[in-house]
């Protein structure tokens, strides 16, 4: 409704989609304040992981020898051995939804806007007021986690 009421004020400086998204995020923030739902900053940051923290389980790489840090259990292709259809079915979609849902708030926000809703990175940065670099780091962490969830689901790794 805010969108319809404010449509007169829309100046065409950004795309309509970006504008609607910023209204939504603002509404959500205002409601958060009004309902006095205080969330400690720590809980938002928690579990997003350190920026330097690896996004792939370190045990997947060899721990010693000349090939240290090269794959020891490398990823299997999904389409050859396990038809991608498996992921396209309802079960796959549900799993994907769960994986996204399980992300910490900030990561979830960014991956939903970028990969589910298909917004451009500039749009997301404008809506959430984050830098391009920061957005990229968060997107990277989010995608890595969702990929991992799908891989767990496909349940196959190849050991050298």
């Amino acid at each position, binding site marked *: *409704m805010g969108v*319809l*009421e404010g449509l007169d004020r829309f100046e065409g400086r950004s795309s309509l989609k970006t504008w609607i998204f910023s209204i939504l995020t603002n509404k959500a923030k205002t409601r958060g304040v009004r309902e006095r739902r205080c969330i400690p900053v720590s809980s938002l940051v928690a579990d997003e992981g350190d920026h330097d923290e*690896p*996004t*792939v389980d*370190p045990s997947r*790489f060899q721990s010693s020898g000349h*090939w*240290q*840090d*090269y*794959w020891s259990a*490398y*990823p*299997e*292709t*999904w*389409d050859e051995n396990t038809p*991608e259809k498996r*992921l*396209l079915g309802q079960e*796959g*979609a549900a799993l*994907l*939804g769960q994986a*996204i849902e399980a992300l910490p708030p900030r990561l979830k926000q960014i*991956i939903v806007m970028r*990969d*589910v809703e*298909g917004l451009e*990175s500039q749009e997301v940065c404008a809506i959430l007021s984050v830098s*391009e670099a920061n957005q*990229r780091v968060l*997107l*990277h962490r989010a*995608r*890595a986690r*969702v*990929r991992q969830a*799908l*891989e767990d689901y496909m349940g196959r790794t190849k050991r*050298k």
Partner: protein
Amino acid sequence: MTREDIKIYVLDYLAGRLTCKEWVEMVTNYLEGTMSFLPRLRFHLHLGMCLGCRNYLKQVRQTIRLMGELPRQSPPQEIQAELVRRFRSLKTLSN
């Protein structure tokens, strides 16, 4: 030594050591097109010779594509009806 090992050996020699562990952290920069020439070259060389990383990149791309194909949830019917009702009354007001 397997063929894969030899390939990566050659690669290390040509492009400087870039481990798979380092490589996977570059994937988003690569996909976002924000990598400068030299890192991109090293990224490509590693990609060309390392099966594990090729599969990894494929998986990430598939993950992104699948997320784009997720069915959109439309709001429940009563909310849709309410929106239409409010929209109508808004129109009458402004007319």
